[in-house]
């Protein structure tokens, strides 16, 4: 299989501190109201037996990206060399078909109406600050085969779903109640 970059997410360690959200916004200088990275919460059960989980919602750089299928202008593509899904902002016409198709509501549209989203800081020559700076080491970035191998003993598994998200999950996480 070709090289595929992705996130490693340890649900037992994420505390929704939002360092990744603000690191992303501040390093990438993202306009207000737009989030390439969000930490969402997932509630379950009934008081006092409630559960509260957290999950990072950035582009999952899926193995089978639904956004690419529906894009009428061919603006979105998946890079052969590292599996990163990128948008060519010159080609995008702002139709938002990708947003409808994405099961995770990832594509973002700011003032210019053109799609923008996480690109793993591909052209910045930096490791994504969201992962580097995670205070609890809940979030890591890398080649997903290596991430999976590294965390084998911790019950690591690849996130399920028809689009094959490039996310390795560790720890208890009930994604059924995820609302995006």
């Amino acid at each position, binding site marked *: 299989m070709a090289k595929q970059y992705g996130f490693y997410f340890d649900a*037992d360690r994420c505390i*929704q*501190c939002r360092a990744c959200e603000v690191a992303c916004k501040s390093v990438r200088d993202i306009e207000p109201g737009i989030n390439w990275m969000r930490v969402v919460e997932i509630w379950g059960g009934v*008081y006092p037996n409630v559960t509260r989980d957290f999950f990072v919602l950035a582009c999952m750089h899926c193995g089978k990206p639904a956004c690419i299928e529906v894009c009428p202008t061919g603006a979105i593509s998946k890079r052969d060399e590292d599996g990163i899904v990128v948008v060519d902002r010159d080609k995008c016409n702002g139709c938002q078909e990708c947003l409808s198709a994405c099961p995770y509501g990832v594509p973002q549209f700011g003032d210019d109406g053109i799609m923008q989203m996480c690109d793993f800081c591909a052209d910045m020559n930096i490791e994504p600050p969201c992962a580097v*700076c995670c205070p609890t080491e809940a979030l890591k970035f890398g080649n997903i085969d290596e991430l999976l191998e590294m965390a084998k003993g911790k019950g690591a598994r690849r996130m399920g779903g028809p689009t094959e998200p490039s996310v390795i999950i560790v720890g208890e996480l009930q994604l059924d109640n995820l609302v995006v």
Partner: protein
Amino acid sequence: MKEAPTNKGTLCPKAFASVQWVYSPQRLKYPLKRIGKKGESKFERISWDEALDTIASRLSELKEKHGPESLAILAPARRSYCDYLQRFLIAHGSPNYGHSGLCFIQAAFGFAYTLGWPWLNRDGADFEHANLIVVWGANPAYAAAPLGNLRRILDAKKRGARLMVIKPEMQPDAAKADIWVPIRPGTDGALALAMLHVIINENLYDADFVSRWCYGFDKLVPHIQKYNPEWAEPITGLSADQIREVARIYGTTKPACILAGNAFDQVADSNNAVRAVAILIAITGNLDRPGGNIVPTGTTMPMVKSVHLRERYTQDFVDRLVGPEIASCFQPFMEGTSSAYYRCLDSVLTRKPYPIRAIIAPGTQPTVTTRGSKRVVEALGKLEFFVVIDVMQNSSMPWADIVVPVATMYECDHPFEVTGNWIMARNKVIEPLGDYKSDYEFWLDLAVKMGYGKDFWDGSIEKCMNYQLENFGITIEELRAHPTGIIYEPKPMVYEKYEKIFTTPSTRLSRAPYLPQGKVAIYNTTFEENGFNPLPEWIEPPESPTATPELLAKYPLVFFDAHTSDVYNAAWLRNLPYLREIQPEPWVHIHPETAKARGIKNGDWVIVESPHGWIKVKALYFEGIRPDVVMGLHGWWQGCDDLGLPGYPILDGGANVNVLYSTDPDKAFDPMVTAMPKQTLVEVRKA
């Protein structure tokens, strides 16, 4: 930077947003003097010389007319410049360091006078070796350094330690817990007493440790009998069975450590609650043993010489306190002599025992920081001279006579960072964006103008820093040669240092030990001699379902607040767009059933009204909160111009939670440590 031993290069969201803090359009840029009426916010620019001359001449004049104690400097929490404030006050001759009763000090007091060491909960929880970790009214997720306690707790959990979290709402640490104990706010002391009852009566205590190292256990046994779990049930809102279970888990899981936080001790029952927990730690054999609450052995790093002038204290200083924060008989405590922050302001109105006439507020906003905002605003209106020192325009500035702008830590190259076993010279990252001095330079320069230059290195910050480094045998310039600082070796840990811990000299002028018997003071003869209860008891909050049942018809819900959230600290940071867009409006967390019963939808604006005042905030549905409790966030007043989001009034109708609380002189203060409650009864209705 990755080399920093404190955070290893990771940061919290507040730090990532600091670029917007430094470059904020709300930064103060130069010294100001008030030209309008108090509260009107009309100012004009003045020079540094004029600012310093005005402050010096007004302080000198008031000192001459009314004595040096007419000056108070407010300092709610420990910051790097706090010893400079004490030095200035002592040189001036005032004991009135206006410390808050809202920080670690009240817990430090109870731990020191029960177990001999003040920091048993802050620095002493030995997560690495514990099989049970109890987080009790603390918030390690939002209120600590990113690589601080929470990360250690998560590591311990992964290793197999159990986590029990005691707090009314399911914050992230509670979400990770094996056992969440949703206690009613402000009743932790009652739970601790009932846990003692169970642990003693079910023989779950360490009899050997108790007989060897505890004083007065025999007196505690009959005393505790009235505090059974059935007694605690209606107070805490936990069932007697659940209280027994919590006590048994803590009593039988060895070793166990407790991390207690401010929610636990910001109550009128503060000192009792801390003592009860201290006794729990001791009698279960968890004191200074691996995995319990320990006294660290420290490092080989020399002591940074403090600029505090505590050696000059005399009894006269203690006797002149306007409103002692810690009861006078125990002054000075850790911070030096201190009056309670709120009581400094209150004296302006009561004139008892005398009025404070001048207040300097460095980096603190009395308008929103302490309870009783209405009285505070009234006091600020009557104060003869008020100086605000800050980085940013703040909510107390409208009442200031002089406003002093200071540099951020990114804009000055002093003093140094000292944490644990690491010391590093601070490096300037950018040139100051305005006409700034640092906080430290300000105090040196003002002291020189006041004629106190001899005590302030004649205004030389360089000499001041070199004085502090004397024990290191290097100068600040030499320290700068180590760009990432110097790390010293930790000393090997030694446990069960009881002879040493239990003979620690106190900070009182007599230096008499905290523990006169050289043992854990279960029965506290020092307190008894000074007219306080020698055994921990229960004191009800000013308002609660059990304290004031007659209020429940009108105010059926318990309200409390957090001081820190994921993106905000205290009364700051709302003007930073990166953070404000995450939490755009002031809020109250409410259980969906509680909200629906009042016709309140998720996101509706609501009025929260207590017997003392009302605020208007957004109701946010929160599944993980007691249905009889609602929770707000401290410190809302600031607007965010960049996002077009408004600020809020300080008094009724705004979003400042401190208008909701009692300031009743008989009920709203812990009698020993002045802690002021942050719980009350409210009703919530659609705005």
